């Protein structure tokens, strides 16, 4: 995977050092982990475990891509976990309601549910973006607020009880389906990643997001409209979170306010940071974030298989995240000026 990515970056001379400099230590770490686990525990490379890992990694990768985009623009999105939950319950509720009103019309039921779920993402994203861009409140505070509010709305809708009543076909031939031997979530994640890579590298939006994160004042002087693009990053992030919520709902078969949550939010930030996204803004590539999401998922899986105490597992995540940022900082400082 890593070589394909470097090849996509057209450059003159590619030395080993240059490759290492561009993609960092992450793929190596990933390979090491996979090789180590395969040697230690044959259960690790069992097909069920692999599919499980891929599915979970995909869900995390989708959220983390959105998170990465926001952070690259110099922001922060704490609300993604809550949006996953809200989108899940809203999708399930809407499907149940539409199914009751138009029984038998499966297409309409599914379309309305998915639209409502994604709509939640759009609304939360617009609120986040508007508050950050227009009211100039820091992204951290705004999304902390919307996180709390969104989670509250999700609980209110469900009273904490899972929502059922979705069409069978949505669960069986979408959520739990497999094409080419891979779960739906993997396909969706690949599409999202490809679209996001394209957006980052080949579109004005992506370029302006880098510019804004790199230096807002310079972007203003260069005639970039700042507000529109900042709102855009938050909307993308929330919509991707909502998409994850819908995928989870389809996979589990019920809408639950307990999906996503703080864990998902923290992991998405961890994935972005370990994937080389700078909290200073202006730096970061979603493909590495996706690899880092895979890495985190495998790490969690490995710790489970090795019967590490579940209370100890977050400690590993914490240590690795801090180490990744420290290493990044170290590399950055070693570069001189010309």
């Amino acid at each position: 995977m890593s070589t394909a990515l470097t090849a996509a970056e057209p450059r003159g001379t590619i030395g080993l050092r240059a490759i290492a400099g561009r993609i960092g230590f992450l793929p190596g770490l990933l390979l090491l982990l996979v090789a180590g686990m395969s040697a230690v525990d044959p259960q690790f490379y069992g097909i069920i475990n692999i599919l499980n890992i891929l599915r979970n990694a995909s869900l995390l990768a989708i959220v983390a891509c959105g998170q990465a985009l926001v952070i690259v623009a110099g922001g922060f999105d704490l609300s993604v976990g809550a949006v996953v939950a809200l989108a899940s319950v809203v999708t399930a509720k809407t499907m149940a309601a539409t199914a009751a009103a138009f029984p038998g019309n499966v297409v309409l039921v599914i379309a309305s549910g998915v639209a409502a779920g994604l709509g939640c993402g759009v609304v939360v994203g617009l609120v986040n973006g508007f508050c950050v861009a227009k009211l100039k409140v820091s992204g951290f505070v705004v999304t902390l607020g919307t996180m709390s509010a969104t989670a509250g709305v999700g609980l209110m809708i469900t009273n904490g009880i899972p929502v059922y009543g979705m069409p069978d076909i949505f669960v069986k031939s979408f959520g739990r389906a497999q094409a080419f031997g891979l779960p739906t979530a993997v396909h969706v994640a690949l599409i999202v990643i490809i679209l996001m890579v394209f957006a980052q590298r080949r579109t004005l939006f992506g370029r302006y997001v880098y510019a804004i994160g790199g230096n807002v004042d310079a972007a203003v002087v260069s005639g970039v409209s700042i507000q529109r693009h900042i709102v855009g990053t938050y909307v993308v992030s929330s919509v991707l979170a909502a998409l994850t919520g819908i995928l989870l709902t389809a996979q589990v078969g019920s809408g639950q306010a307990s999906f996503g949550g703080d864990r998902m939010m923290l992991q998405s930030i961890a994935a972005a940071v370990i994937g080389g996204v700078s909290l200073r803004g202006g730096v970061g590539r979603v493909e590495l974030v996706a690899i880092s999401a895979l890495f985190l998922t495998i790490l969690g899986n490995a710790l489970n298989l090795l019967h590490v105490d579940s209370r100890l597992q977050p400690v590993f995540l914490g240590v690795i995240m801090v180490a990744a940022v420290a290493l990044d900082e170290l590399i950055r400082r070693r570069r001189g000026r010309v």
Partner: protein
Amino acid sequence: MDVDVAPKPAEPLLQLRGISKHFTGVQALDRIDLGVRAGELHVLFGENGAGKSTLINVVSGTFPPDEGSFHFEGEEIRHLTPQRARAIGISPVFQEFSLVPSLTVEENLFLGREITTGGVLRAREMRKRAQALIDELGFDLDPSRRVDDLSRAHQQMAEIAKALLGKVRLLILDEPTASLTERETGRLFELIARLKSRGVGLIYVSHRMREIRTLADRVTVLRDGRHVRTLDAASSTDGELVELMTGRKIDLLYPTITHKPGKVIVDVENLTLADGSVRDVNFYGRAGEITGIAGLVGCGKSELIRAIYGIEPATSGAIRIDGAPYEFPAARRSLKRGIAYFPANRTAEGLALSRPIRENASMTVLDLPAFARFGVLRQAAERAKIGGIMAQLQLRPPNIERAAGALSGGNRQKVMLARALTRELTVFLFDEPSVGIDVGAKLEVYEFMKSLVEAGAAVIVVSSELPEALALSNRLYVMHHGRIVAELTGADRTEQNVLSSFFRDHLTAEVA
């Protein structure tokens, strides 16, 4: 250290031998020798990227040299840190300010060496010491003001004051006058003279020949990280120094520009800005000439052109571009109308330092169909176009994928200039175009302006450096306290006339 020194001179205060420093892919310093005597002002002279910054960073302990020996007051120094350097009396004043913006001047002065009793700050004592120091320096600076409320010049003063607090044996000044007015510069020079008489050694980095002439005892010329020569300032000529620095002969600093004034392109009438920095200003700029605006730091000249570009709000007045009224200017629409602005502070407002040169250069043109269609970038076209432009501007090294943050001042300015060549423009607003760049790069900027004007563009140059404003412009406006106090053309454009127009105003309103 060596025995072969016959008439044993005074032991140098600082003695560096064979200092080398290597960064990833770059030999920043290559076996540099430097000796600074007590009471001597030693100028480091060289182009951007010659290694001056790296060298003063080594001396002040920011990073260790890879090899070489470092003696200070006769003692060998190893493992120098910035704290240790300050403790033994090495005090640097960097271009990039080391002040905490949200703290007051006084808090900044004592940062890291606060006066305390049992962990409790002694605020009054510190206030007294700070005030005493500032009075002694003769700076017009209020120690209780927050640093981010200060102008750049005042921040520079605070920075110098900070370096002089406590014991100082060796003072390092990196282009200290870049943002000071003439008067403040005069004060600084008096201060330098006093420090010298007290036996303080000074390392002084500057690109300004006049300063080197007035201040320097010895000059060390660096080129490409190597020590070229150390000479006595008194017995060397400007030409000699520049030649040593660049490795080539430069006859004239300012090119001869043929101005052919055409129609009025930029016309400003009774312009007043929201913050009062510009009041009732009338002026115009014509195609085919350079219109200069001279004035002291903070006189409103930068704000004036920023308002035309649309990044400072105006409250009243009219701007006309090529005869058509231009209401509610905004950066994006200015670019569409063919107006480009080149900010003075290229780090703060010009470049996204983490992004490559290519992206920085194309940032202002991505709305054009040549660069993007339906929101999708045309990368091949972008790479080809920017690559060509950077080659034309002689970017060294010619790699457009390098991050802008890794570039020297001169190369950063080239990236900014590249923006001018990426789209059809008719009006060029330059804000302090030569701040922080070396003589060679300056020359290239001036040649660049010359080619713009001779191709029929309207160029407006705002400069605090009087010789520059005089030499480049065809017509020169002088601003003072937000107003235009004089318009000088032809033979009237003399340093004398510019200064007297400040002075005339000073008689009526004496404000700092």
